[in-house]
């Protein structure tokens, strides 16, 4: 019984949430359209949480991903205003993300600053940079190419379901691709294996020939890059960029990874579980919004659920 609660407590809770919304919102919740909608709403968080999982596997975390996402959106938008083609602007925004993440990695692994301090500092700097570059204003309207905004609105048609035309949103597809890539990276490659070894015991990993500092640097760069991608996706979705629009991403991404890690046997973060964590947060957000629950009340609920899930998991682990 306790084992079940420990391993599947979060899943059971998730099922209870689903059933609750299904009953409360019989007409709208359990529909293909709503689920595709949820998948689109969650796509940025999936990308950010996948990136966050990479560093959390090593026992580190990155507080700067929210401001990195904002900055990347701003960079892309500014480049659009200089008539850069979409592919070039997006690529440069992603490179900024990789570079920013690499700076985090450099500070943490080579300079030796704690991840909390290093990424808190870069959070502040990136956020300041986003304001400086944008002049503190939202960049929107004509400078944003139409095709860029349309990308988020379009998708691959899935035909008619019960008389309603549904399509798989492009942003969902991007999120799925990122999730698959990160899953392969963490679960199928020597790189991922070594990251898990660092997370389990970095001294033992080092003495076993793992290049701990180099791998940390790469991992943080990838996290920065995925944060930038999430920021660009967000900019596409709202066809604009402002220097604070990524700010909610960091806490939610960390929350999703923590929620997910309660599902794994030994409490380590894993990509699939992080996606479940994102699903829990996304479904809650969607359902509560439909039930017109105040967004501040939503925040209280989400925080409470994280505490409940993690404390149940650690409490039952202790009882073993």
């Amino acid at each position, binding site marked *: 019984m306790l084992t079940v609660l420990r391993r599947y407590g979060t899943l059971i809770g998730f099922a209870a949430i689903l059933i609750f919304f299904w009953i409360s919102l019989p007409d709208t919740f359990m529909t293909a359209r709503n689920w595709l909608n949820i998948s689109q709403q969650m796509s940025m968080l999936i990308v950010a949480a996948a990136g966050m999982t990479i560093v959390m596997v090593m026992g580190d975390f990155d507080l700067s991903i929210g401001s990195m996402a904002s900055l990347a959106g701003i960079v892309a938008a500014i480049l659009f205003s200089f008539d850069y083609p979409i592919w070039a602007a997006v690529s440069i925004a992603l490179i900024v993300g990789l570079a920013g993440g690499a700076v985090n990695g450099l500070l943490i692994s080579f300079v030796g600053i704690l991840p909390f301090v290093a990424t808190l500092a870069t959070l502040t700097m990136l956020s300041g940079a986003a304001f400086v570059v944008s002049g503190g204003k939202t960049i929107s309207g004509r400078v944003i190419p139409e095709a860029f905004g349309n990308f988020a609105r379009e998708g691959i048609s899935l035909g008619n379901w019960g008389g309603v035309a549904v399509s798989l949103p492009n942003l969902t597809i991007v999120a799925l691709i990122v999730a698959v890539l990160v899953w392969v990276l963490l*679960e199928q490659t*020597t790189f991922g294996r070594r990251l898990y070894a660092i997370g*389990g015991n970095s001294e*033992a990993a080092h*003495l*076993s*020939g793992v*290049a701990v500092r180099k791998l940390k640097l790469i991992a943080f760069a990838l996290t920065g890059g995925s944060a930038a991608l999430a920021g660009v996706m967000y900019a596409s979705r709202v066809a604009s960029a402002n220097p604070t629009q990524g700010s909610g991403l960091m806490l939610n991404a960390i929350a999703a990874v923590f929620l997910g890690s309660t599902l794994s046997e030994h409490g*380590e973060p894993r990509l699939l579980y992080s996606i479940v964590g994102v699903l829990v947060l996304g479904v809650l957000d969607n359902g509560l919004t439909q039930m017109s629950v105040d967004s501040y009340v939503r925040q209280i609920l989400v925080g409470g659920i994280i505490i409940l899930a993690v404390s149940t998991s650690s409490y039952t682990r202790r009882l073993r």
Partner: protein
Amino acid sequence: MTLLSLKDVTKAYGGVPALKGVDLSVAPGEIHALMGENGAGKSTLIKILAGVVAPDHADIRIDGQPVEIGSPRQAHRLGFRFIHQEFNVVPALSVAENIFMGRQYPTRGGLFVDWRKLNQAARDTLQKLGITHIDPSRPLGSLSLGDQMLVRISSAFIGDDGAPARLYVLDEPTAALNRGESERLFTVLRELRASGASVLYVSHRLDEVMAICDMATVVRDGRSIDTRRIADITHDDLVTLMIGRRVEEAYPPAIAAPRAETVLAAQDLGIRGGRNVSFQVRAGEVLGIAGIANAGQRNLLRTLFGDLAATGGAMTLAGQPYRPRSPADAWRAGLGYIPRERRSEGLVLSRPIFENTTLPHLAAQSRWRTWLTPPREKRAASEQGELVRLKASGPGQRVRELSGGNQQKVVFAKALLGKPRLLLLDEPTRGVDVGAKFDIYSIIRDMAAGGMGVVLVSSDLPELIGMADRIAVMRDGAITDIVAAAGLNEERLLNLCYGR
């Protein structure tokens, strides 16, 4: 009349028995030696007395009254005082602050620490040991190791109201002391005895024990073997009791003689914090490294393994220049390493056996150095597991769930998977039960017979004498002697370690 009596103390760690039944009784006003080889159970017994470890079963009495020792605080209240080598100190605080740590500091107006009084009290405490050369206001970390040890020792002799000290437990107190300092300590111990307090004295130095102790209890393999009056017993009797069997029988015999070719040659190799060393290891040879604690053994191994940069000199490995810049280089060059602390340095406890085994060899154990192939890894881990006689439910079992001896075998499996040319061992049998110890010795013999060179660092002198072909003695960061192990006895080796 006994002060402290222990009967039938047992303790097992994760299924591995450390104490299988120890009896001990200490009379008031007596210096009582607790003797035994490394791993015999002395430290577990002391931890039980200190309230740090809970025994599985124990009948503990003080003045005939049964007591329980549930915490260090309780041990203190019962009048026990402990001096161990790894005593907790704060190097950045002053000598006086360390001596009085955890006790009430003298204050002015109940609020401000009265530093003058505190320093004076510390000076008085040190004076009792005849120590006048240590300034109590200096940071402890700035003192020499011997002086630090004296400070630690003196802190146990502070008078306490409420809980007078009745039994002092000293674990290898003289390990870092010179002869004069040791003599002063013995004077204090004799004074304590005269005042009616008792001392439980743990030391490997038989001469000391013979000189200052009244009684000796010998433990071996977790059992108390005998308790004798020192006056009725000789030096040799004590050794026989401790070892319990002839040294030769504890170690499997060498299968083949060392070969002619040299695996590793170090020429004037500069060790950080030490001096330049030169030595060679031949194929099939076990080179032992002896020395008292912190004589430079660890840094020597770390330099060989590329974790510490050499400060000078050169190495060749199988005739080729060898200049490792990281452990990764060392693994690639064909070295294997068993670190001293298997839990913190050797293993990723939360991961399965096979992931630990293949970690240094992932490039070779994967497809195109990138894609994991768990079935292949598990096969390799199972084969290595058989080689080292690992007892586990399968290669997927988490290392955390294994006993200490089996965990150490995983570390061996990991080191041996790449078929290294040279194996570096740092205290390979520390905290390992007797059966697994023999297995590990057999593995070392097999590997040496196959032509592997082995460097064995150990503080267990019988182990060095039993396993090594030659023994290099380190003192103060330098190799002072290299001697053949054949015909060497423990006492002679110990004297070499101390430079006498």
